[in-house]
């Protein structure tokens, strides 16, 4: 009798903890169902639309996101550099390459919740395409780090994990057919202040 009760409880415990925990984990990780990966960058073009998968819908409801519409823009998030290591706020990175067609784009350094990192300075940890210096071939080189650097400097600050969020506004790539042959800039680690 006691054995039956114990086994029933065990089954229920596995079902509830396992089921709930797996949903929580699936919603927490950045990479997920419906993601499109281009290099180190991940985007969810379907998020926030009625056509989204159940995981995206749950994420939208749980986090109170109001996702950008197709006519507005498309956001990409990077959590790793080109070597596959996690992005760290104490490290210096170079973001270099071509940017796809868009009216303009913005790039910012984000913390775990994808809010802009607090720098404690008047300068935002963000850049936009109207305010960058370009190479002769129209590509852009951005240096991200704690200390001022020549060229385009993206200020970062603090310690711990970091994400880069790159958003293109009023862009043809937001329609999913254009996403296959888009190339995005590379993120290369330069060094870290230990």
């Amino acid at each position, binding site marked *: 009798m006691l*054995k039956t009760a114990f*086994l*029933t409880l*065990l*089954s*229920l*415990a*596995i*079902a*509830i*903890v*396992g*089921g*709930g925990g*797996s*949903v929580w984990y*699936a*919603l927490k990780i950045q990479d997920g169902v419906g993601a499109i990966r281009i290099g180190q960058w991940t985007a969810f073009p379907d998020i*926030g*639309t*009625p056509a*989204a998968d*159940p*995981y995206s*819908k*749950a994420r*939208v*409801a*749980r*986090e*109170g*996101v*109001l*996702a*950008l*519409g*197709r*006519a*507005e*823009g498309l956001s990409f998030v990077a959590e790793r550099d080109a070597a596959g290591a996690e992005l760290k706020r104490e490290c210096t990175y170079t973001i270099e390459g071509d940017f796809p067609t868009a*009216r*303009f784009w*913005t790039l*910012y350094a984000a913390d775990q*919740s*994808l*809010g*802009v990192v607090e720098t404690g300075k*008047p300068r*935002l*940890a*963000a850049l*936009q395409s*109207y*305010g960058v210096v370009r190479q002769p071939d129209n590509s852009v080189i951005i240096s991200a780090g704690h200390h001022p650097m020549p060229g385009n400097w993206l200020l970062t600050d603090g310690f711990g994990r970091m994400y880069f*969020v790159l*958003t293109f*506004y*009023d862009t043809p790539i937001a329609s999913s057919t254009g996403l296959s042959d888009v190339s995005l800039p590379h993120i290369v680690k330069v060094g870290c202040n230990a």
Partner: protein
Amino acid sequence: MRSFYAAMRGLLHAVLLGLLGAGIVHIAVLLLVPEFSERDAWSRLSMASDLYKMTRLDAEAGGAPVVKSVDPLFYATACRFDLGEGMVRVKAPGHVPFWSVSVYDRSGHNIYSFNDHTATGGVLDAVVLTPAQMIDVRKDLPEDLQGAIFVEAPIEEGIFVIRAFVPDSSWKPIVSRFFEQSSCELQDF
């Protein structure tokens, strides 16, 4: 020895049953999260302000941001509406470098979006209405609605969001004024 095997079989049975149950719970929880979430955009906005009230979403207006993950180089404002009461008209006179609009349904799904290139002369003047209301409006289009963008949405409750680009600090007062002058009201017809 035999009773030990029986016990192990019982345990294995219980674990397998538990894993099967975990799968069912996973699906059930996943589908119920949107229904019961009290942290979705609509709930957060309704705590901050009333229907037909423009509310700033970014942290710039003071206090924590109402809805998260807004681009730091953007300001955003939103109002909630209920098409069951009638169609809603949103206007924002003035010019900013870039604005875009999204209409969301009650659960935060993007129904329709457009930007300043869509609007006549780049001025934001939009009407959100149901297909049934659209039929009525088509019969006799009022003079002052001639230049407006009509957004036909098969929904009742919804959220109207305006986002505007702030290229640098010098644009902050201009974009703030753009939002202060914006209006969101029930349109009589």
